[in-house]
């Protein structure tokens, strides 16, 4: 009996070894260990044995049974794994095929950049303000130290509303800049102030690829006790560096705007040539690709293109020798190394006065930049009219 048990064990292990699939395994299990299996058959003989033999053989049979069960389990998981792998192979799909379409809309690029600008300034403690688009001459001009005969008030530049004028406020105009909100906010909240005013402005001007009668500006105003040109430089440097995602430097030039004194133009370092005015190009092997990429970036002047170009530059530095590098003038900044960005300056005392703020106690700066132009620069948009075209082929790109 002992021998037949051992024989059973051997046979089972042998069969297990040969088994190829789960079905065979199941058969083996039934044949040897099942209720009507061989082990059961052998153990039926136990009743004819002595008590001592019963004990010994019983223990042996139990041991063999447990051992075989373990072996079957092992084999089972092995076969299951193999089976799973095999079935996965049958589930091949074409990964190059596109996904099932999902519907998503698009936010207008001006809205997107405007939100970005608002976020950066909000983080620096600026409130976002708003004002009417149909504005009085007073707020659009006089309040900003632009008297009646100033060139900026020429009918060529300003849209007027057909309506009787008010003795104090003058005619109604479509605001030519976001600056009227300066005086409006001063009147409402007084000093100190930290605000930006993004908004739609209008110029009576024929439309072409780079001029439109309607565009967006962002006005900024900071008034407190010790606000200086140094802090204007500081805040704008922070803002532009954050907006472009890299260190940007700014410079001032004298400029003239009636509502600031000193009046400034603010430029930032050209993003294409890093403020150098020259672009280095690789003449060796990858040169052509590099050049094409740089030129493309110059044209587009966009963030993404710029990143690409940076990569192109890095690659070159690693692999090149000096004699294969040539430089050529940067077209984007016309070799000056600087991009014109905005007008700014210290708020003119007359403007503070119009806003009811004591210019002996408070001082500050104001700036205004073209949001539309920034959007065009960011995405490399070459025709301003696309922004008001409503063309989905354009809008779907953002």
């Amino acid at each position: 009996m002992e021998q037949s048990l051992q024989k059973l064990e051997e046979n089972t292990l042998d069969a297990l070894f040969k088994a190829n699939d789960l079905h065979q395994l199941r058969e083996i299990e039934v044949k040897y260990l099942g209720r009507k299996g061989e082990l059961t058959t052998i153990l039926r003989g136990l009743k004819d044995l002595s008590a001592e033999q019963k004990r010994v053989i019983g223990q042996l049979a139990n041991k063999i049974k447990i051992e075989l069960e373990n072996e079957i389990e092992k084999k089972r998981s092995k076969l299951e794994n193999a089976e799973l792998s095999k079935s996965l192979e049958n589930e091949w799909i074409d990964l190059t095929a596109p996904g099932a379409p999902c519907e998503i809309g698009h936010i207008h690029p001006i809205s997107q950049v405007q939100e970005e600008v608002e976020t950066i300034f909000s983080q620096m403690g600026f409130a976002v303000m708003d004002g009417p688009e149909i504005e009085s001459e007073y707020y659009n001009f006089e309040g900003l130290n632009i008297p009646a005969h100033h060139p900026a008030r020429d009918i060529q530049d300003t849209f007027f509303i057909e309506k009787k004028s008010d003795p104090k406020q003058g005619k109604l105009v479509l605001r030519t800049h976001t600056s009227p909100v300066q005086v409006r906010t001063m009147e409402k909240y007084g000093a100190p102030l930290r605000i930006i005013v993004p908004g739609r402005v209008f110029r009576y001007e024929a439309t072409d690829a780079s001029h439109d009668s309607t565009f967006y500006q962002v006005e900024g105003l900071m008034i407190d006790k010790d606000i200086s040109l140094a802090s204007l430089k500081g805040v704008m440097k922070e803002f532009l560096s954050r907006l472009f995602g890299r260190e940007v430097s700014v410079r001032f030039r004298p400029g003239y705007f009636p509502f600031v004194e000193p009046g400034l133009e603010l430029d930032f370092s050209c993003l294409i040539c890093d403020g150098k005015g020259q672009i280095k190009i690789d003449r060796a092997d990858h040169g052509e690709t590099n050049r094409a990429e740089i030129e493309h970036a110059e044209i587009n002047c966009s963030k993404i293109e710029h990143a690409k170009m940076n990569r192109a530059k890095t690659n070159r530095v690693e692999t090149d020798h000096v004699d294969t590098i040539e430089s050529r003038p940067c077209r984007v900044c016309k070799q000056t190394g600087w991009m014109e960005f905005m007008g700014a300056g210290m708020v003119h005392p007359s403007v503070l006065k119009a806003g009811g703020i004591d210019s002996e106690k408070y001082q500050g700066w104001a700036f205004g930049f073209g949001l539309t132009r920034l959007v065009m620069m960011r995405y490399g948009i070459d025709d301003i009219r696309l922004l008001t075209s409503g063309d989905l082929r354009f809008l779907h790109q953002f």
Partner: protein
Amino acid sequence: MKISRNWLNEFVDLGKTSSQEIAKLLTLHTAEVEGLYETGSDFENIVVGKILTMEKHPNADKLTICKVTDGKKEYQVVCGAQNIYIGMQAPFAKIGAKVKWHGEGDPVTLEKAKIRGVESEGMLCAGSEIGLHEEEKSNQQKSGIVDLNDMVDLNAMEIKPGTHLKTIFGEKDTIFEMDNKSLTHRPDLWGHYGIARELAAIFGKKLRPLKLELSSEYKFKTETKFENESEFAHESNEKHNFENEKKHFSKISMRVSIQNIHQCPRYCGIALTNVTIEKSPIWLKTRLESIGYKSINAIVDATNYVMAEVGQPLHAFDLGMIEKDAHGTRAIIIRNAQKKEKFQTLDGNTHSLTKEMLLISDSKKALALAGIMGGQNSEIKDGTTEIFLESANFEPYSTRKTAQSLNLRTESAQRFEKSLDPALAEIALKRLIKLIQTLCPSAQIASSFIDEGTWKPKKHSITVSAEKVNSKLGKKLSIAAMKKILVSLEFTVTSKEKLLEISVPSHRVTKDVLIEDDVIEEIARMYGYEHIEPALPLLPVKVPRDNIERRLKIKARKILSLGLGFTETYNYSFYGEEDYKKCFLKSEDHIVLRNYLSEEQKYMRASLLPNLLKNIRENLRFFNNFKLYEIGRTYKEKGSYMPEEKKVILGAIIVPKKEPGEIFEKALGALETFLAQYTQCEKEIKPAPDYAHPLKFLEFNQGKEKIASCYELHPQIIKNLDLDVKIALFEIDLTNLVKKSQQHEIRYHPLPKFPETSFDVSLIIPEKTTVKNMEDAMKKVPGKLITKITLFDIFKGTQIGEGKKALAFSITLRAEDHTLTDEEIRDMQQKIFFELKKAGAEIRGL
């Protein structure tokens, strides 16, 4: 405005500083230089050569051997051009000259050479070979040698063998192009002298005075009027009560009377006789041409030259055309024009004038439009021998207005509108007399030096606090440093502790430097903005004032675009009459522009609809199934001075005509989903506005506030615009939504402790019975067991029967405190069926 470097060099020594550097420093300290370019050339070793003899080259058909003289020596030159002839004078490049072969590539130095065996000692040149610019080249036959004999407009006297080419074509110069806009506030910068003054201050160099003293024959009796440190002022700001000692100067009697002293604060003039009108010498011609002026004749050119030099416009009249009175006195009257007075300017155009316009006239007729342009009647002609020179100051605003309304934005008008310094009138006139004396030595001063007007030199002082300067700059400058800067700009400065007492020079006092802040700008720009380091302000941390509307708008875009699949568009704030009429909008709602770019942009939009429909129409060329929205303002007259500006969202869903189903439902679904993010509204069926389908219009209100509406576009509008699609829209009043969403609070409801159960009911009702009727009926069942009623199907069709529709609801029941028993559920079902039947429904499957 164009500025010549050579000209500047007459007043300030620019040394070897590169022109790029000068442009950069001017841009950083004074005003923007938009660009610069080089003109002329050194023409080293290139002179006028005259062809004495010509013979054929023995070895080449197309070559000629010439003998050329430079006035001193003869040279043998081989030439390949066909346009040469004996006696021709042409640019002759000697050995050592730099020429461009065939006008291309870099210049090469000419060497002695044998050409086909014949020695050539130089070269006769074509324009392109010696870098003459396009204008000169175009006068010549292509590829031919420059024929200097042909240049009839040049002073022939100066063209002879040996004349250096530089004296004909001008020496090398750099022209700076100033951005006129950045000079708007600087009346002192509209001439070379003003720019030179800035450069002298920038470089710390001396500014040379203008040469004004007249030759000894003409003595002015003078008295000093200014106490100004400036050299310019020293030299020039003297009051000349012109009283000539020699009698014959007084042979012309002149009288000037100013009738409008406000528009003409100062008028200087002088008469000259014995004048001959000739061409300008080449140096004058080239200099004027280099800055873009056309040469006319020496007298007119001289007035332009002085204008370009000191910035003061001048005018020369033909004296003979000024009317004499019985005593032989000629009167110049500065008066306003009569209404509709006609005047012909020297450009030949006749203008109809208004009473505000100022004229220079004699006793009978107008002679010039003051400060803008002379008249044709008194213009300098070839035979003119007696002239009257005018140097006056005209009021900026009226000059500007006149120039604009007559469309005559002349160099003169452009300068007067900047508020010129009246002191300049006198300086310029003296400079002009001096120049005319050089150009036309026979000219004689024939009248007293007229100086009329009420203008008096203005002394203007400003007190500046050094602390204020530093506080505004964010920098610590010493008082000495501030003083040095101001003195370099010709300010007079005395200091007392921390206060600077500043006296403003005459040329800055008319407009530009009036208050402390103006002085701060002078210090800042000369000190150099580049020396101001960026620094973040030390301000207390403060949470900015919240702008709920902005936040809500950003959220709205995210829901509409990123959630509901709409694409945002931007449109103009205006449209045309046709646009709003096609949309059945009322004309009385519209605000009209007084000046508009086109008929299509004449009205301020009272609705976002017309422009959005335009977007839709345009996009139909490429798409037929899309969703658009715009967030923008509408403008409406409301009786008060300021019109009403409303912020509105307009969304549109566009599907092809053949697509099954109600498009209204799609817009409704989008709107309901959107609004649920902000607030809860009541839906109300109201009469539809004209632009909406009369039966497919629904309003969303909260109390009395209108929040939104949803509608299908009126079929007639679809037809009007020829749109072959179905369009449904929703309009949201953003301003009201902001108000209401602030009251909208989200409250958490505990999750149910006991299970819910649901069953479906399908019913048939007459077509025009509403879903709401059925919902209301079900809600009549007492108790709170119904937690949700959801409509999941509406069906119409022949199986249901004519004029009927089938609705399918899913009804959810739950009790707060126990699990519902089968009995309770059955009971509820019966009650619901009962109410539905009572409301006229036929329950299907019962």
